[in-house]
């Protein structure tokens, strides 16, 4: 399969544009896939890969551009329309129904029936066959999917795609939850598929997988196709990485302090582990220092943050703040000790969207405004207003509902909550997700100002330039372990990407 003949493409997408409120997620993407090839889609987080495959699956409608399927222009108006053409998608977020059995999930939407009655025996037999083909005959077709592990669910998703007799199968990071030997198994299945003429669009962050399984590579950056049809095995890593990097948009990062931060040690994490996520993580954060965690989604970065915060109960290790040991799995104790978390899912995990800003800001420090449980609302308003003013939240009206603010201003409100509480160590998970470019530099400035005032910051971001630009020191994580630690001045984007994709900590 190494040299793909210039066969007639089964799928070509041209000039695909998709806009969401405030974001142009796809800005002219071209993709061409020929039958029987494994076409790899590469790009950093936020480059538009997920949006692209949702367009391909019929879950999103593109605003512009054309999709040609087997020589004919088509509109994929519903997921059903895409499936009918023979496009099956394995999603990253494992969209299975927990309450149904394995076989029922595999055939959901295209049940085997006789006059409306499900033929369960036939479905179970077929499901067993598919699971065996995937090398997982030990998964029972009648088992409830909710009782399976993440990897087991991934395999059910794959069986479902196979059950469709698809001509094109899209796999969104299928290896993320699989162990090494299971990945080999996956490749064997992919080889079977392509040998029978099925095309596979394969998304992965791991270059070694793309080298093993892929035929051609298309690279996306900032919602655009920057290279297409690269040979997967022979294109040098350096070229691939440089295509993915080099942002077209320059972020303005605030200057770092001239001298190295020499504050007192604030946080000490030793041999921290969370079963199934990460192990043996040790690091320190000084007062006034910004420490960044770089790595892929699934490398365990957010889990480290949440475990330090006590939102997850650590399996082993210690967390010490200012010399005081923090109990495992106790958020209240962490907050009392001076920790604050700005979580990844801002809207669902941090904000009361239907409440005014003032209540969002005072949430974590209500006791300060209360006497015998009675909230002094005028003092609450005064102090919250001071915070919104110092953070330059726009519009500058603390009585507005949180819902009505832009992503950047919402993020400022979350930061403001911890400012008011007198937080000493701030944990930031993807602080600029969904924040537009202009507001980003403001958030960066704000984080730096916080650090200058003596707050320690632990930062997680999927965007390597952000970690490098903002943090003083960087920890690189891969598959649940810290593989490298260095001052950010000693690293560049290429090296970090090499490390997290190839696993070489050279």
């Amino acid at each position, binding site marked *: 399969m190494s040299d793909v003949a210039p066969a007639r493409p089964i799928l070509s997408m041209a000039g695909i544009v998709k806009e969401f409120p405030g974001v142009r997620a796809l800005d002219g993407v071209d993709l061409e896939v020929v039958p029987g090839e494994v076409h790899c889609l590469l790009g950093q987080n936020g480059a538009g890969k997920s949006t692209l495959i949702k367009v391909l*699956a019929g*879950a999103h409608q593109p605003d512009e551009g054309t999709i040609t399927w087997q020589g004919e222009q088509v509109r994929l108006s*519903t*997921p*059903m329309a895409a*499936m009918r053409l023979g496009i099956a*998608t394995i*999603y990253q977020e494992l*969209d*299975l*129904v*927990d*309450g*149904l059995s394995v076989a*029922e999930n595999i055939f*959901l*939407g*295209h*049940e085997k*029936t006789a006059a*409306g*009655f*499900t033929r*369960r025996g036939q479905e179970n037999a077929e499901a067993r066959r598919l699971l065996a083909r995937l090398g*997982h005959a*030990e*998964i*029972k077709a*009648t*088992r*409830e999917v909710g*009782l*399976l*592990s993440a*990897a*087991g669910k991934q*395999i059910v998703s794959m069986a479902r795609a196979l059950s469709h007799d698809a001509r094109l199968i899209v796999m969104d990071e299928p290896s993320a939850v699989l*162990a*090494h*030997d*299971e990945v080999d198994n996956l490749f064997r299945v992919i080889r079977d598929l392509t040998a029978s003429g099925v095309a596979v669009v394969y998304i992965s962050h791991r270059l070694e997988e793309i080298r093993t399984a892929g035929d051609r590579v298309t690279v996306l950056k900032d919602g655009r196709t920057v290279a297409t049809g690269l040979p997967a095995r022979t294109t040098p890593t350096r070229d691939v990485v440089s295509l993915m990097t080099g942002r077209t948009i320059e972020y303005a990062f605030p200057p770092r302090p001239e001298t190295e931060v020499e504050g007192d040690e604030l946080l000490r994490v030793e041999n921290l*582990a969370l*079963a199934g996520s990460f*192990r*043996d993580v040790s690091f320190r954060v000084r007062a006034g220092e910004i420490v960044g965690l770089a790595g892929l989604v699934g490398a365990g970065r957010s889990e480290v943050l949440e475990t330090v915060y006590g939102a997850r109960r650590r*399996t*082993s290790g210690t967390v010490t703040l200012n010399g005081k040991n923090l109990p495992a799995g106790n958020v209240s104790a962490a907050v009392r000790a001076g920790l604050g978390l700005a979580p990844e899912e801002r809207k669902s995990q941090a904000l009361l969207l239907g409440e005014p800003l003032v209540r969002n800001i005072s949430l974590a420090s209500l006791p300060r405004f209360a006497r015998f449980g009675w909230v002094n609302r005028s003092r609450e308003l005064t102090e919250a207003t001071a915070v919104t003013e110092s953070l330059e939240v726009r519009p500058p009206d603390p009585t507005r509902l949180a819902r009505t603010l832009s992503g950047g201003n919402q993020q400022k409100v979350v930061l403001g909550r911890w400012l008011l509480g007198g937080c000493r160590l701030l944990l930031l998970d993807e602080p600029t997700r969904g924040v537009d470019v202009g507001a980003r530099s403001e958030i960066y400035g704000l984080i730096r100002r916080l650090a200058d005032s003596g707050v320690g910051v632990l930062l997680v971001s999927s965007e390597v330039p952000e970690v490098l630009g903002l943090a003083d020191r960087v920890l690189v994580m*891969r*598959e649940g*372990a*810290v*593989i*490298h630690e260095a001052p950010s001045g000693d690293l560049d984007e290429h090296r970090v990407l090499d490390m997290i994709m190839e*696993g070489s*900590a050279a």
Partner: protein
Amino acid sequence: MSEPVASSQELAADVTTDEQARVERAAEVAGESGPLQSVRRNQLLSAMLRNVGLVVVLIVLAIIGTLTSDNFLTIDNLRNILVSSSVIGVVSVGMTFVIIGGGIDLSVGALVALASVWATTVATQDYGAAAMVACALLVGVGAGLVNGLLIAYGRLVPFIVTLAMLVSARGLAAKMADNRTQIVKVQTIIDIARKDVIGVPMLVVILAIVVAAGWVLLNRTTFGRRTFAIGGNPEAARLAGIDVRRHTASLYVLSGLCCGIAALMLMARTTTGSSTHGNLYELDAIASVIIGGTLLSGGKGTLIGSILGVLVFQTITNIFILNNLATEVQNIAKGLIIVAAVLLQSRTTREAKT
């Protein structure tokens, strides 16, 4: 993680850790925690255990009934319990579908009332029994369709839509009947409650048919399968190509249809149509479905559980009546039963899982 772990730089190449992780992962993939067991049998067992709590409650109630009253364990009384379960049982079948599908229908009682009034107007009765049956069913289906369209296509919250339907359907029923009770004069309808089929009251036969049809629909057809799917994970259902909105709407139509059938049964039993029929049926039906093991959040549940739930409530009522106890006391007991049954049940399902 009691194993000594290598320093972070070496981890990627550490073969032993890798090997160990592989074995752990294989077990994890299959979702097994111990030695391989017969998963299938396990599953069957847990499905049965889900209803065991209710059967235990029923048995305890039967013992209490037998001890406190000589009349409890008689054929006549057991017939009574079944007959009084039949109307609310039919309503609970529709409710089970709606709740498994992730919704709620507060309008069932009001729809029973409206259907009973509409089918017993002088004009309808003039056309005979067939017209009355058709009328009651159509009123139920029609009102259910309005619910369904507003919820699925108007994207309104089921709680609000069916609450509005509850209020307005009862209002319409009262207006149509001019606040009077309408007498059923067609003998065929009245006979439904008088006649037996091989020794079993016709009302109970109707309940059995509705339950059987509902069970097949829920457990053996694509419709039922998809109902679980849209209640359990609507986004997954959508991406699997299921028309979630149309399906949601049809669940309320189904509930409305059950209300129409229930209205006919109630008309036969009481020989009347009235805007006060079916009062608080929504609460009885929801309570039965919930103590029957159906998740209020949708995606999980059984029809048999719902029917057991109905039987539990009717048996309590029966015992209280036999012992001449006031309805106030009955209601307190009902509340306690709801909490007790649900507690018992979550205990047994948890044990079945481990």
